[in-house]
């Protein structure tokens, strides 16, 4: 195979992202997949997007909006 390059977007490795490492992935044209040069993750664009969504599991308040007052924060209804 020829050397790998970047894909159409510069995806980071979702597996490394979940351990707080930002590392660019490369694209293997032959296998039509992204792969990480540090860990063993590899997957299609669809798989990367799915795993990125999974990485958000810890952000339970990500889409909430809060107001702050004397008693602390309250979720905006």
């Amino acid at each position, binding site marked *: 195979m020829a050397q790998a390059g970047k894909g159409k977007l510069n995806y980071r490795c979702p597996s490394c992202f979940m351990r707080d490492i930002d590392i660019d992935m490369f694209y293997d044209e032959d296998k039509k997949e992204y792969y990480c040069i540090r860990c063993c993750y590899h997957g299609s664009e669809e798989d990367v997007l799915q795993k*990125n969504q999974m990485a958000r599991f810890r952000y339970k308040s990500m889409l*909430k909006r809060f107001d*702050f007052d004397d008693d602390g924060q309250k979720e905006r209804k």
Partner: protein
Amino acid sequence: MKDTFILNLVHRPELNPEYAEKTAGGGKGLEDESIDIFKLQQRLAHENGLKTTIQMTYSSLFSQYVVDLAKSDHQKYGDEIGLSLLGLPCRQFNEKYRTKDFCIWMFSLEDRKRIIDDVFGKFFECFGFWPESTGSYYLDAQSIAYIEERYPSVKCAVATCWEEGPKAYHTCNNSWYTLMDGGPWNPWIPSTCNTHVPAKGPEDDSHIVAIPHLSRDLIACFDGNGSNFGTHPQNVLRGMVYEGDQYPYLFNLIDQYRHMGKYNGGYSYNMMFVGPGWLNKKGRWEAPYSLLEKSYSDAMAYYGNLKKEGKLCDMGMSEFASWFRENRLYSSEAFLWKDILYGSEKSHFWYSSPSMRCCLDMNQGGAMIDLRPYESKLVRECGIGTSHVQEVSYPFLIQANYRAGYFTHYAGEGTVKSCTVSYGGVKADMCLCRTKAVLRSEDGQRVLELDPVQFKLGELVADIQSVFYFREGSNEVKTVRKVLRTSIPDAKVCITEYMTACYGTTEYPEPMDGIKLIAGDKTLDYQYKCRTVRAVGCCTAVVPQVECKVSMHASEGDECFVKEGYAFSPMFTLGLVRNAGQGEVFESWLKLEKAN
């Protein structure tokens, strides 16, 4: 003064953006694209009625077009024209200095002075006046002193990135050397000895007001990557804290900063500083340009609307410095930060004063999980030619994430200050009591009052409340443990107030030789022998490596102890012991002093 939420919005025209050199797209060259991004940022600010501080970079001073742009925006919108020590790399710099280094604090002192003179001189040549603000990711005390000596017009500087130390380094696969943990999260007047340390008074005032690079989430950045959770819309995208094109977290973050005013005399603050590389046409990682642009536009609109509603005051950096000197000066700062991201109901209390910076975690019963002994006023020269070429963090005595904290496996200990409560041979640690707190200011001190927690110790149930006092100008923290109720009326629980500590700036252990542990009139020289010495009175550790003496004391008659660690657990512990029954309190003090 009341309810003053101040914004410093800073833009820098970079002609070779650090992040974009290899990735910038579009049909035009990198230089044109970079100028376009700067113009976009300026336009979005002005459209929303906000003034900015334009921090000219060295490379931009060679572009008459950018110089004219800055002059024009200064005249038209009142933008301040400052001078950044970021953005040094360009053809002229590279040819002159023959290096790829770009962080001012990493150069040798001789080169730092040469570069500062060069950059300031070029600025004067372009504008005919000296800048009143400057900055970098970090600006060391020696550079500040030199700038103040040669260019006394400078009143304000971007001087550190809060908690951008080992975490940011790891996030970049161990390749991003902004190792600068341990400073204040909000503006301060740096001491002449060390940039991180707030000055005590005129005697160690460095003559500038320092502002942090971004306003960061005080929980998320303590554990996670500091670059994902701050007032930088594209950093929020970097952290994947958005869905579709929605990122309410950014606005929660801004609003929680606004809420700091309640605990700091009405004053609250935000700093936003997005380098042009974050808005390049090819997008950043997963985020396409359209989302990068939208997020910046939304942030400007949010600040702009706050201003229209009379809830925000936008200032240039030097204007802010004057305001800060008039209204804040050497005051301490405190806040009880609530989790706005993970849904945990966790809160951290942060305190910064000329004597210390510390963090207490309500999810661990108010345990102290971070302690920086500013009282030491540690002088740390940095840059090439010193033993701290890159590493400029202010050392900790306690950092629960780097050095274990409350201990969860079988061999060793971790850094934390907490207490244990025991009865009938059963012992439990306050670290395992999740609770909440209220913060108030009274009689010149911050009072952090925690909700009572319950201990189940065999047949006994005891309700205990913790209250912490931080007096303005003091180098002590007072801790009060109140035994509110015991299920057996005459029972006395044994409270051991303890602090397990070490020193360092990273996760890795440091040599402990030379540390002296003192209990009452008995002294131990640290030899990794796992010894414990008990006495009556005060317990102390002298840590010469960070020129710090840390002690704990209660009443004169209390038992105290010091505990030495061992090679697999290179820590030390100071402890105070008191038996207390229902209605009784145990008051103790943690004290920091400089040790030469």
